[in-house]
């Protein structure tokens, strides 16, 4: 299935909301999914895995300006924290973040807001983000961290950004799973709501 990026954003936001995220964080997830698709990364399998595991992840707490989490931390909450303070730090040590791919769009936005390249190190590898908030061409690599993640400004000149994608390919099965989550944001219709909620039966007599 070939989706527009707006469809990706809307679907991801609704699925996140349908899975129990707050409206504000669900919107952030929509934008994050769009960024991943735009960068040519397959967002859907990770998003689905995240939504399924969401209830088991630790919500981080801020203690003296540092994030702490008793177990693998929610990447969405961690990502929001990261961008909310963007520009105010040059390096942030984060707890061990689950599904670190989902933190990547937030690191990208932080880089864009700060106007500086960033390096994001996680248990699944490391990525470099350009000052324009794009993913540099480096494959994930570098030192894998155990037990914590780090986002830090870097003086290195990142390799050129990857080509951007205007559309997103998605497996039909993934689409169905996300649509099922998204449907939780909707209200099933009754005969009464059909005529009243939309404002009348609407015969075309004109």
């Amino acid at each position: 299935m070939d989706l527009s990026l707006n469809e990706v954003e809307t679907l991801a936001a609704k699925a996140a909301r349908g899975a129990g995220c707050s409206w504000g964080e669900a919107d952030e997830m929509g934008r994050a999914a769009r960024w991943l698709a735009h960068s040519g990364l397959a967002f859907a399998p990770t998003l689905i895995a995240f939504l399924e595991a969401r209830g088991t992840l630790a919500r981080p707490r801020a203690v003296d300006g540092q994030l702490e989490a008793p177990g693998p931390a929610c990447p969405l909450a961690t990502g929001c924290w990261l961008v909310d303070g963007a520009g105010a730090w040059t390096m942030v040590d984060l707890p061990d973040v689950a599904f670190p791919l989902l933190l990547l769009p937030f690191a990208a936005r932080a880089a864009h807001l700060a106007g500086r390249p960033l390096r994001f190190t996680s248990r699944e590898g490391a990525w470099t983000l350009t000052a324009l908030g794009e993913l540099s061409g480096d494959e994930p690599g570098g030192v894998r961290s155990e037990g914590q993640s780090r986002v830090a400004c870097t003086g290195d000149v990142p390799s050129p950004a990857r080509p951007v994608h205007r559309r997103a390919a998605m497996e039909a099965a993934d689409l169905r799973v996300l649509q099922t989550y998204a449907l939780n944001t909707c209200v099933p219709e009754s005969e009464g709501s059909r005529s009243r909620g939309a404002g009348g039966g609407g015969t075309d007599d004109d």
Partner: protein
Amino acid sequence: MNRPIPEPALALRAPDEVMRLECLGASHPTRLSFLRTLMRRAAREGWRFTRPLWEIDAEGYGRALYQVDTGARSYCLVAFSHYLPEERRTDRVIAEAWDTSYALYDGVPDRDELDRLEANVPRQEAGRFTARELTLSRANKSVRLFDSLVATLASGVAPGRAAIDAVGYLMRTTAVYGNGKFGIADRDVLRDRPELGGPFQAEMLTVWLIRSFTLDLAEHCARALGGDRAVPLEPDLRRRIGVGNSTGLGMAPFLVRHPTLLHAWIHARETALARVRALPDITPGQHGHLLAAIDRAREVAGRWTTIDAVQSARIAGLRADLDRLHMAAVSLDPGVDHPCDRLYRFARVALGLEAREYAAALLIEPFGALVDDLADTMAVDEDALWRMDGTLPAHALLARIDDAYGWAAAIDFADPASDARFWYVSADKLEPRLGERREEPGADREQPLAIARDVMRLRAHLATLPPERTVAEIVLERPDWRHVVQRVLLLSRDHLYGEVRDNLLSAALRPIDLLRCKLAFFGADQFDPRSDRWLRISMFRGAPFPEELSAGEAA
């Protein structure tokens, strides 16, 4: 000694005045409306319009192409006309079949592309689309006008003006989709194309070309029916026909979900008015232009009909008020003492809300050179504004709420009538709906459009927190406040026209007020509420056709 004439302040009208639903619901189109912007650009840049394909049979079914060459690029309206059984005819968005369907295509489609479109466009939401399609739309014939006009033309008789004015359009669209819906191109694609980069320009182009198709189709059917006896429509009667549109709740949440865009639109309109009011004098030519605009408005108001009792009463008042505005404008001395400001002040004091807002729209009409640049400020990069300063302390956020949301504090949410409604999305049609909170299920899935209520709840929560607690800490601990905090930070200082300053949950809410505001920015008129939550309008009525464009006509 002459006393100095005080300069009217260039201050814009206050958000507390213009962002009330009552005022938004009295909006009229202006020269900054999007269809006017489109026509001005097309005239200025000398866009060329052709009809390279017309494969319509004697019964009026088939396909056609309307091509526009803007200089930089070509676009095509791809039009399909189909047989529609009577029992499937409904002009609500929930329909599943239509008389005609359309896509605006990026480029010029070849035969294979046309066949692909023909397999999908008539199915609309049930079809699947690509980045080559910029918009998607459909329209039904006016039961009152289309067939009777065809029969009249076929018999060789020129139709009466009254019959045409009573309806004003041959077809009515029920949706014009853009921005990635059903797989069509994302709006991003247009961002770097000046010809369609402004708000809703691709949608306006679509509707403008649909208008041409509806007239060509009627004349084609008349020729097929009447042969040599058939006559075409006189050009001045042709001009009187626009495109109808039915709009329901689907459009209402848009303004709440895109507040920086709403701000940009209203701010541009208010800035235009302020600039004109600040003119110390105007030329006799501009004065004459203003009088002509008021006369056209009187004509529009004269033929404006609706079945809605509230709107009917307003229109009656408007007609009388426009006569008074005309008298005041005639006796206005254009050479002294800020004539436009004086006329606006007269409207404000002496006329009803409909006429006051109409006057505000009409006053900028003669002053294109002074205000048209504002059209360029009406597009917004919403992404670039998507940030929040997490270092802000709770007490500062609280102060921002008190500064910008005083109107919300005045609503008594202990009164059940104040939160009688809730906004939701229907599972069947994925369309926004309005429910009765205490009578219908689904309030647990309420959409986040309860701005006044939620900002006041946030305020109460903030008051319980240590004043130095930062915004980032607050929303980390309570993510359910994130969207409200973000909104307050975005709209409480820099985008004061972004918030509709009324209670969107109230039992007294008339959602059509929101719809009318947006439709007026499109350039619609003849607002005809069919209930408190959907209405019919017309667009491009009296406007030139693409092929008639000349700079003078479109400006």
